[in-house]
């Protein structure tokens, strides 16, 4: 069980959060222009990284805010946390 430092509420138990998968997958602005393949990339294809992954979490049982987490998926160490819209840190 992680401790996640919600950028709004501070350190909380993992039980208060939900994971939202890979971060920085931007919804295409013009989906209709995309080929089936391009759309599938957006919909389903994931990096599924072993190591440093940028991902989304939401403080479901707290402030209900989404934010980004940088986590090493090989040992679950959280390296950094930053708000939506902020620049990802270099790690």
């Amino acid at each position: 069980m992680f401790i996640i430092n919600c950028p709004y509420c501070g350190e909380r138990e993992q039980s208060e959060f939900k994971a939202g998968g890979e971060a920085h997958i931007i919804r295409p602005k013009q989906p209709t222009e995309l080929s089936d393949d391009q759309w599938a990339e957006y919909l389903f294809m994931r990096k599924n990284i072993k190591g440093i992954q940028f991902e989304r979490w939401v403080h479901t049982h707290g402030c209900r805010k989404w934010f980004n987490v940088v986590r090493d998926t090989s040992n679950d160490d959280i390296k950094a946390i930053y708000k939506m819209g902020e620049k990802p840190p270099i790690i």
Partner: protein
Amino acid sequence: MLNYTNVITEEKSFSGLQMKEIRPVMKLIIRGKKREFLSAVGKSLNLLLPNEANTSSRSENLTAIWLSPDEWMIYSNVTIDSKNNDYETENLLNKSISKKNLGAVTDVTDQFVMINMKGDKIFDLFETGSPFNFNDFRNKKGSVTQTILAKIDVIIHNQNQNEVNLFVRRSFSQHLFSWMNDSASRL
């Protein structure tokens, strides 16, 4: 005349812990991001919204608690008339916030049940069902947290030494109250 039927009718008392619902208490959720929003609320209610996380502020009639960077709950310090649900505070805010498109005002008076808890066992009870770290919280008057208790979302507002108000959604409140009584019986 319509009857007023609240959920938690009985008052519970254990060694070092008393629990009862306080009702009716007006509760509003207000939402807004702009600076004008904050000042508009401040002016119309002369109540400064807390902008520091997990804190609250209080005026003579109202208390405002921080829920998120753009969300607060405002509740009345005293109980209101159960025969009428037209709230002056809400109307004021509608005029100064909603009508001006500065943010949102939503009546949640019955969305939440407010349970008042007194006694030195409050946090022993919480520790049997909440992962939240109350070590600092319990010593800080006015502190607020949204967390989980017995798998149920709650908002806890620290009134002062050994007294808190706990807010829980109405449909969960009977289950939670029963759970709290069970746990309290063994403290």
